[in-house]
């Protein structure tokens, strides 16, 4: 018969006549008690050993109990302090006694309640008096604690132990002692001879090929020990959020747009019916680029957009009373929103002329000269989407955006009437943060004005909305400073540790 080495050691240390405890066998074999226990149960399962379990009550001191062995029980300290201040003769104010006893915090209450219970004295109107016949030296609770501290049997009745238990000064528990004896089969096995199997540390290709793995025992690992964390690459947390958004929008029937980051002010602002003297178009808010003006804007389109700005659109339309120049329209800047892409697609210049119905989106970078802070960057991603169809209503807009945000766990969207130069009606979207319940702005939306769609040659309704991807990402990752995520200041550990969302 072959047995693993440790089982063999336990079998040899066991006796057919005497019960031997696990600890005794561990001491004899030099194995760890838990190893012996494991081996003993394995041997029992083989029928070679019987295992008997005996339960016993254990009693020990808690940290608080141990402290009182050294410092005396709080009520005893109160008694002795009272004695020192002459409270056996005349009542002394509580404050003085507590101060003298050096009691504070919860100890004061403990001292007072037990002082009275044990009849060490009386407390009346804030003054303390000591009972003449009290004898704290005969306190059975203190004696029991001291005995336990010395490892002796406290030799007191259960009532005292119950009292100590309720004061949280002792721990009562149960311990199990296991003893083993050889069975008849075990004796037989030892008589006929048992060999130890070989122990190996590594499973090698040779062991596998030769079939020797059948006869070996594998050395044990500490399987609970920490292993160095494996490091793989992962997609950027913002990209993952963007992917999720793209999935949702594609699922809702939206096609993705793409187009230039550096574009003419014409596509970025003029098509959006943003007056050329609008505050957001000043030097301070945009990144103008030092390249020659863009010439490739269709003349007719340019003329229609200029007419909308100057004279308005339609019979009863009025224009802005703002200067407008082609030169400004041709200037090239970094786009402040991806609505420039929507303008290109709606005009047909990005591809085919579009016939309703259409749905389009993009999740792309935009550039704004903002003050850098934990929630603002000069570059960020804008989610942009629009729906083109005949006779769209505000209700369709509300229904579409409710569905989009529901996909991210944001429900109870509120639509606050708002103003944008390029949409009417316009709404700011507010929703509840899924965790904090806080009301937060989550987007801006509206129906494109006819001054926007008309010059582009679109004669049906187009509703659109936009929001910052980072805002959504901060909600879903819990990031508090956007600069940890985005850009060359990013902390690689933060990127590695960011929780995966899906």
């Amino acid at each position, binding site marked *: 018969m072959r047995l693993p080495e440790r089982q063999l050691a336990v079998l040899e240390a066991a006796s057919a006549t005497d019960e031997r405890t696990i600890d005794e066998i561990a001491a004899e074999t030099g194995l760890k008690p838990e190893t012996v226990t494991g081996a003993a149960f394995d041997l029992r399962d083989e029928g070679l050993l019987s295992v008997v379990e005996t339960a016993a009550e254990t009693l020990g001191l808690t940290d608080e109990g141990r402290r009182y062995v050294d410092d005396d029980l709080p009520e005893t300290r109160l008694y002795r302090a009272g004695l020192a201040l002459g409270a056996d003769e005349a009542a002394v104010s509580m404050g003085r006694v507590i101060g003298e006893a050096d009691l504070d915090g919860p100890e004061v209450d403990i001292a007072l309640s037990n002082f009275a219970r044990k009849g060490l004295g009386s407390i009346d109107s804030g003054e303390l008096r000591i009972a003449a016949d009290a004898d704290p030296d005969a306190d059975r609770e203190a004696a029991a604690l001291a005995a336990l501290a010395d490892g002796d049997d406290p030799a007191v009745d259960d009532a005292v132990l119950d009292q100590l238990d309720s004061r949280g000064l002792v721990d009562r528990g149960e311990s199990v002692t296991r003893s083993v004896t050889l069975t008849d089969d075990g004796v037989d096995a030892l008589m006929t001879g048992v060999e130890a199997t070989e122990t190996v540390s590594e499973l090698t290709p040779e062991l596998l090929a030769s079939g020797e793995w059948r006869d070996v025992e594998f050395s044990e690992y500490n399987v609970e020990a920490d292993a160095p964390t494996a490091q793989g690459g992962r997609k950027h947390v913002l990209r993952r959020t963007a992917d999720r958004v793209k999935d949702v929008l594609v699922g809702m029937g*939206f096609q993705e747009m793409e187009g230039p980051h550096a574009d003419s002010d014409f596509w970025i602002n003029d098509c959006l019916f943003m007056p050329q003297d609008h505050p957001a178009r000043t*030097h301070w808010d945009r990144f103008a680029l*030092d390249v*020659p003006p863009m010439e490739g804007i269709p003349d007719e389109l340019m003329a229609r957009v200029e007419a909308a700005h100057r004279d308005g659109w339609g019979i009863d339309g009025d224009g802005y009373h703002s200067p407008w120049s082609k030169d400004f329209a041709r200037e090239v800047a970094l786009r402040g929103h991806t609505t420039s892409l929507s303008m290109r697609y709606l005009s047909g210049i990005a591809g085919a002329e579009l016939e309703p119905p259409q749905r389009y989106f993009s999740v792309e970078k935009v550039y704004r000269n903002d003050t850098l802070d934990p929630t603002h960057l000069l*570059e960020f991603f804008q989610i942009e989407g629009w729906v083109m169809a005949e006779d769209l209503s505000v*209700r*369709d807009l509300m*229904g579409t955006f409710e569905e989009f945000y529901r996909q991210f766990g944001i429900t109870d969207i509120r639509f606050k009437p708002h103003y944008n130069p390029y949409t009417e009606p316009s709404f700011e979207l507010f929703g509840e943060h899924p965790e904090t319940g806080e009301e937060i702005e989550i987007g801006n939306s509206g129906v494109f004005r*006819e001054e926007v769609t008309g010059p582009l040659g679109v004669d049906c309704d187009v509703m659109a909305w936009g929001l910052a991807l980072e805002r959504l990402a901060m909600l879903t990752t819990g990031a508090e400073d956007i600069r940890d995520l985005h850009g060359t200041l990013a902390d690689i550990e933060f990127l590695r540790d960011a929780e995966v969302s899906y």
Partner: protein
Amino acid sequence: MPVVDIDTDELRGLTGRTDTSDEEFKEDLFGLGLEFEGETDDGLLQFEFAPDRLDRLSVEGVARSLRYHYGDDRGVYVPDTNDPEWTIEVDESVPDERPYVTGAVVRGVDLDEGALESLIQLQEKLHATMGRGRAKGAIGIHDLAMVKGAPLQEGAEPSITYRGVDPDGDTFVPLDSNDELTPNEVLDEHATGETYADLVEDLDRYPAIYDELGLFSFPPVINGKRTEVTTGSRELFVELTGTDQWTIDRMCNIICYALSARGATIEEVEVNYADGATHPSEYGAELVRPNFDTDEKAVGHDRIETLLGVDFEPEEVVDCFERAGLDASYTLDEDVTYEVEIPPYRVDVLHPLDLVDDVGRAYGFDNLEPRYPDVGTVGGRHERSRLEDAVRTSLVGLGFEDLLNFHMTSGTENYDRMNLGSGSDAFGGGDPVEITEPYSEEYTQLRTWATPSLLMLLERNTHNAYPQDVAEVGFAAERDETEDTNVAERRHVAGAVARRDASYEAAKGRLQALCDDFGAELETPRTEHPSFIDGRTAAVVIDGEEVGVIGEIHPAVLVEHDLEVPVAAFEFHLNALQ
């Protein structure tokens, strides 16, 4: 967004709602789109709102909106005006850059501290918004009792003159000063003058307003002390100058409506552009102002119903118009059309669509039931977006941490710290797309390649554990006048291996795996690049075309970035994997 400061006691007085609490006002104003922002040090409540209804920039305007909201007022209101007595003469010397003027006389004014403060606030807020920081329109309000406008000839009307002045010519005592100053001295020495100097300092002649006694106001910079408005003023002269007649006329209307709401009487003035003036207003050379004419626009019932998604009776629509402070009439034809009258303080109604929005607000957008549009379309991602994504997935599988860096950078980072010159043939050495007048030294151009971004990130993370293998699929751009926008925009794939054993082989092994994923054939003929070590640098040639560079980063570049481990890197154009 504009903010209006409201004294709620004033609001109670002006709305006649003496029992309304601050909290109730806050809620009612939220319904109108004015969001409570906080309190000023003086205990005024601040409300932020979108910059369309600029007539709400004062407590008087907000009160008017509330009275409509409560149903206490309905329809268009236009204050009565008295016939003109005063004239504003526009002299030929007026600077071409600021040719327009308008104004009004206001009598029977009774300003307490609060009302005066509200008037000044309205003036400043109109300057900041419609007035575009006073460039497009600036308001001057004067104590009429201190303006001397004796007629030049018998039987003529009293007048003031808008004209140009030699910057170093006449003097006057500006507000908040005791000194006689020329306009140029105001710009140099007076705090307000310094603030607004850039609006006029390039002009040959400065805008100025004169009366019989001489120069008394220097628009758009500062008024004179002589005509300062105080709580004792009973009659006011309001003048506005600017670059657009319509804009200053509307600003004037908003001021007049606010003063009228406090019981003052508005008296017209004549504005007389000089014969042969180079810039008479588009409304003629002789004007009577303020112009309280209402506008009219027509909007179809059908359009209102489809845009709001609600079926209305015409009476309901008219009710909504009236509660929005508009008047509407209609004829019951097959297609009902409303003729809508719009009061002269509204600056935001450019199209009939804006009237539909007013109906929606009066009806209550909250009352609309959302519905998912019954419109079928097919979704899908753009090809480039799918390619980028597939490359990222491969890079991540090869153990790279995916990065997302800024597209804006500086020449120092993009070239200098990489040992690279701009305008060179080396990869990444193309001409930069520079930002005109950059605001920060850190962001002066678009990056021409992505490897500098990877090194900046490694530089920032030297305290973290190695290996640090990082990659990015991202944007880069060069100046290129053959492009429509004069900017060539590309997507680059960049990877860097930073670890003790980083080597050319480590980088090439990963690049080879990536190319294999996309069935692309990789060759790496030897080349030179100043950012990399000579003899350990190759061109990235994919399917026969040179598209990038690979090699071990030059020690000088590593040291420049405080890196103490070797780095091997590659970068190439994403399109090569198409």
